[in-house]
């Protein structure tokens, strides 16, 4: 071993003893103490921390729920009701867990919106983005598996519809579906394995989150202006500045989620899931959880079984290649006068897809879903590469400190906001 390895010296001899054997103290000091955050980061940058906190909350509440849950088709529904009525604070655990899942998605969607709008996915953070999309996929799988466990009508038929998606695959589809279910339809074997997987996947997510954070710490966090840290003047240390800021965000989040848990715990739940699963009766209107609804809308917008399934999965997979579809070197949409509006349009469109995904697929709703589907893929395949090519970005600040110099100085010379940039004028020619 390297005898010349330089060991960090701390005042505390216990820390030194540990550090000499496992340099974990200096690692945490470097990654979570001295780690430089761009000083212009706004509260959008707190959602990564919020997501981590929510993940831990979900794992903890889930472990305690599992202590009272029975993964058997005859007993699952009753065991959940027992948690609600008889287990001490069982109702709280369950409402934290079920609403926590919804809030986890709200947070992660905002986190993704932030990454897209401010171009965090671009060089050199592409791998970081890919790991993030991977986490998003794992989250969707985990929430789907978890939704099956209460064994209500929506659980049962949601599981049936989603696992039947696999039967659309030519030749191997039926066999694959049977293998996944362990039966010819959703049954006890399915419930058992869904429980096992629902328990283990969050720990996999936790591991990938570790990589995700490690990856962002290599090149540092992006910021609203999308420019790199150049001097010490551009950044603040994670501790105490960002830690305190994230704590403020956490308090606000705690108020929001508590309001729902204590005053509207079933706001985001489906009434049908309080009816025990019945394999012989399909509810009149099967709806997914709202956070998966945009993808469900895409599935139903296509009048072909295989085509719908492919486009639905494609809508997620396309996210992986976003860093290569976007040719512009400017990260932040604040400096991209044309793309900015298409980006906002994308968010509105995603929201609209989610809205119609919760409604019956007919008439006007179906039309909206189809237009939304076109915009969704058009945004990635046409708008993103094309706009990056024709757009003339606004002038970037010289440094992060420079942003503040401009904001503080009175508007004598006319700030960037006052006078339309040449790129803005070009916009009208389109």
């Amino acid at each position, binding site marked *: 071993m390297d005898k010349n390895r330089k060991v960090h010296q701390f005042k505390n001899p216990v820390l030194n003893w540990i550090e000499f054997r496992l340099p974990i103290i200096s690692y945490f000091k470097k990654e979570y103490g001295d780690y430089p955050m761009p000083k212009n980061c706004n509260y959008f940058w707190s959602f990564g921390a919020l997501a981590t906190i929510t993940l831990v909350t979900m794992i903890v509440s889930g472990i305690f729920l599992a202590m009272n849950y029975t993964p058997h088709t005859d007993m699952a529904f009753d065991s959940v009701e027992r948690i609600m009525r008889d287990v001490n604070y069982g109702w709280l655990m369950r409402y934290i867990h079920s609403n926590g899942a919804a809030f986890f998605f709200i947070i992660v969607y905002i986190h993704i919106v932030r990454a897209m709008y401010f171009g965090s996915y671009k060089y050199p953070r592409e791998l970081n983005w890919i790991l993030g999309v991977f986490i998003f996929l794992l989250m969707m799988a985990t929430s789907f598996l978890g939704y099956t466990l209460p064994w209500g009508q929506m659980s049962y*038929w949601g599981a*049936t*519809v989603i*696992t*039947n*998606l696999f*039967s659309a695959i030519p030749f191997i589809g039926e066999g694959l579906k*049977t*293998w*996944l279910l*362990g*039966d*010819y*339809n959703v*049954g006890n*074997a399915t419930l058992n*394995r869904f429980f096992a997987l629902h328990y283990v996947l969050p720990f996999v997510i936790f591991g990938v989150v570790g990589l995700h954070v490690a990856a962002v710490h290599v090149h540092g966090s992006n910021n609203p202006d999308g420019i790199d840290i150049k001097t010490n003047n551009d950044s603040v240390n994670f501790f105490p500045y960002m830690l305190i800021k994230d704590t403020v965000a956490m308090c606000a989040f705690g108020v929001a989620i508590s309001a729902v848990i204590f005053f509207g715990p079933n706001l985001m739940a489906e009434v049908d899931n309080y009816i025990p699963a019945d*394999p*012989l*009766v*399909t*509810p*009149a*209107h*099967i709806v997914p959880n709202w956070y998966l609804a945009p993808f469900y809308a895409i599935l*139903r917008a296509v*009048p*072909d*079984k*295989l085509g*719908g399934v492919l486009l639905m999965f494609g809508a997620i997979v396309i996210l992986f290649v976003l860093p290569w579809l976007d040719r512009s070197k400017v990260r932040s949409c604040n400096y991209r006068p044309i793309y900015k509006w298409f980006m906002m349009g994308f968010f509105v469109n995603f929201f609209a897809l989610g809205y119609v995904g919760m409604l019956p*697929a*007919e008439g006007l709703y179906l039309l909206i879903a189809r237009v939304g589907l076109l915009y969704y893929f058009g945004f990635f395949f046409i708008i993103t590469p094309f706009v990056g090519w024709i757009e003339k970005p606004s002038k970037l600040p010289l440094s992060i400190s420079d942003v503040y110099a401009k904001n503080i100085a009175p508007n004598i010379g006319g700030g960037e906001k006052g006078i339309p940039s040449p790129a803005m004028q070009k916009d009208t020619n389109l």
Partner: protein
Amino acid sequence: MAKKPKNKRRDFLQLSTVTLGAVGTAAFIWPFLKSMSPAEDTLAAGSTEVDISAIEEGQSITIKWRGKPVFIKKRTKDEINAAKMVQASDLRDPQDDADRVQKEEWLVLVGVCTHLGCVPLGQKVSDMKGEYDGWYCPCHGSHYDTSGRIRKGPAPKNLDVPPYTFLNDNTIKIG
């Protein structure tokens, strides 16, 4: 030059070790993957005998077979004629009505939509029966006719006909 044969021997040993390791790992994984397939008792779920003497003309009952709903319908003359009138070649999943029944008046179907597995409506008098007066799937709007064939909507195939035999005039054995 004297070294070369020795290297070849080393290469061979390395390659065969890695190959054996890979095959061994694959063989080790197989039982785990296979354990997820339906178990023997699930496969042996077997058959169900149904008394059909009480079913009136135009009436339909739902029974459970291997965890799935099975529709048994005694069709009316009109329904039989409607099913027979259709040219098989016009259908998405071409099949003559005669190929889907053993006795004209008795239609036996697996009541699972071939789209994404919901149970179609149409068993009760009050149910929606769709544009072809058979069954209608509420999930994604597939319409089936009086022979259980797909006529409109996203489902790719006709409702399955399970294996069944008439034990006598009043009893059907499904499976």
